[in-house]
């Protein structure tokens, strides 16, 4: 019989958790996968090479805004910009994911350990949640959402261009990968909680706004799978960059379907 004291006025005291299942597997997996993604993305963004092979442009470098880009989308930044053009754009999709309600859940649990799992005690003694700077500014999520829509519009344009080979219209494995990736990225962005709010969730009276009500219902259905889209699109965007990188560097030959 174990002996444990109860705290007067508070709940029963006890060990960090009485769970005996493998609760630590999920947070550990998240730490490994997220860390691998961040390391790969940082490395790829700083390469400033092997991000374009006609007609494929890596999503990490799109839209390419520097004039020294191998494939410039819009040359806003002149020759004075000496750093990788990926740095100019990755802050927007990166910010969307950093402030995303699903990712917040994941990294608060896995990296912050607040809590590491349900019914498992927080690692830290103090806790103020999102009431103070800087976490109170997770509120900026909706503006990253708007910015991500602009980025995704460029990614769709890249997909259209990915059908245009030297010898005319065609479809390669890269085209298929880019197409799948932009669909997944679009689903991830459009299923976000801020989108759900902005299209109609802020209303109390749906009857007076049937279009917004319909959009809210559609986004609500997508929102139920937001975590799934968050995970799949995380892999798809990194794998799309990896494929184009391998093709551009000559390591792989693109498979051309026709």
């Amino acid at each position, binding site marked *: *019989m*174990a*002996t*444990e*004291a*109860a705290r*007067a*006025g*508070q*709940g*029963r005291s*006890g060990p960090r*958790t*009485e*769970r*005996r*299942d493998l609760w630590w597997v999920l947070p550990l997996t998240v730490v490994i996968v997220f860390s691998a993604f961040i390391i790969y993305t940082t490395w790829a963004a700083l390469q400033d090479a092997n991000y374009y092979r006609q007609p494929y442009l890596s999503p990490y470098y799109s839209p390419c805004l520097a004039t020294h880009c191998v494939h410039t989308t819009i040359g806003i930044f002149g020759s004075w910009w000496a750093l990788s053009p990926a740095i100019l754009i990755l802050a927007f999709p990166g910010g969307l994911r950093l402030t995303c*309600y699903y990712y*917040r*859940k994941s990294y*608060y*649990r896995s990296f*912050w350990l*607040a*809590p590491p799992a*349900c*019914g*498992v*005690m*927080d690692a830290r003694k*103090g*806790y*103020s*949640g*999102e*009431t103070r700077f800087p*976490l*109170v*500014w997770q*509120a*900026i999520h*909706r*503006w990253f959402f708007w910015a991500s829509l602009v980025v995704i519009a460029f990614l769709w344009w890249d997909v259209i261009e990915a059908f245009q080979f030297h010898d005319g219209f065609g479809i390669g494995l890269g085209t298929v990968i880019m197409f799948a990736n932009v669909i997944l990225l679009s689903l991830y962005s459009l299923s976000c*909680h*801020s989108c*759900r*709010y902005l299209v109609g*969730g*802020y209303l*109390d*009276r*749906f*009857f007076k706004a049937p279009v917004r*009500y319909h959009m809210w219902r559609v986004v609500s259905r997508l*929102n*139920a799978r937001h975590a799934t889209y968050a995970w799949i699109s995380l892999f798809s965007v990194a794998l799309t960059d990896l494929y184009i990188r391998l093709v551009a560097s000559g390591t792989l030959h693109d498979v051309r379907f026709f």
Partner: protein
Amino acid sequence: MTAGSEFTMRVWRGDASGGAFQDFRMDVGEGMVVLDVIHRIQAEAAHDLAVRWNCKAGKCGSCSAEVNGKPRLMCMTRMDIFEPGETITIAPVKTFPLIKDLVTNVSFNYEKAKEVPAFKPKAKEADGTRRMYQEEVDRVQEFHKCIECFLCQDVCHVIRDHPENKPAFAGPRLFVRYAALEMHPLDTNDRLGLLKQRAGLGYCNITKCCTEVCPEGIHITDNAIIPLKERVVTEFNDPVVWLLRTVTGRKRKTADGAGS
């Protein structure tokens, strides 16, 4: 699990001054739930074992406890999910003050409920009625499924692991209540300032444990807390809204809902 399997039930015994787990070897019949076994312990081995229960059908929310460390309704936890011979830990919910054995004082939740401004309907229409439409009601119906078992409050780490936050935090059950009122098509009260300050919505870091343990399957985080957070953002934390208000001179709401 076969009929007549034997389990070790490790049940918390004690009160506010202290306590410990006590083991009971119990035969468990087919179809039994954890609450049945607790009742058998009460009848055969520990007549003074305190447990709160009522409907035994997952609708009264009385028999909340922590089974192997997970907040659950004992009446809805079937014994056949465990392996025969397994030791099963039954403890009172951790977040609230212990009264005796498996019974806790959940007054915190009722005190927080008193702080929620009541439903305040808009004026009647010219024909003497108030109208709302099914598509408007559908959204808040989900919140009315709450049985007040307070498992979401128990599992919420904001108060479970940091009891010092209790005065400043209402908790997920109350956020469901706030959402039901805030999104009601006829309600005119404004609770956003209150949610931001006195109810401590910002303490929630949306880790969704409340949703995971809800026996009614209410999407507490996605459908109540996050939409409320978004409304609070619009009202208080959106830099663009702030800029527009500064330019147009429109006033911001205060904690009691009035314009400032």
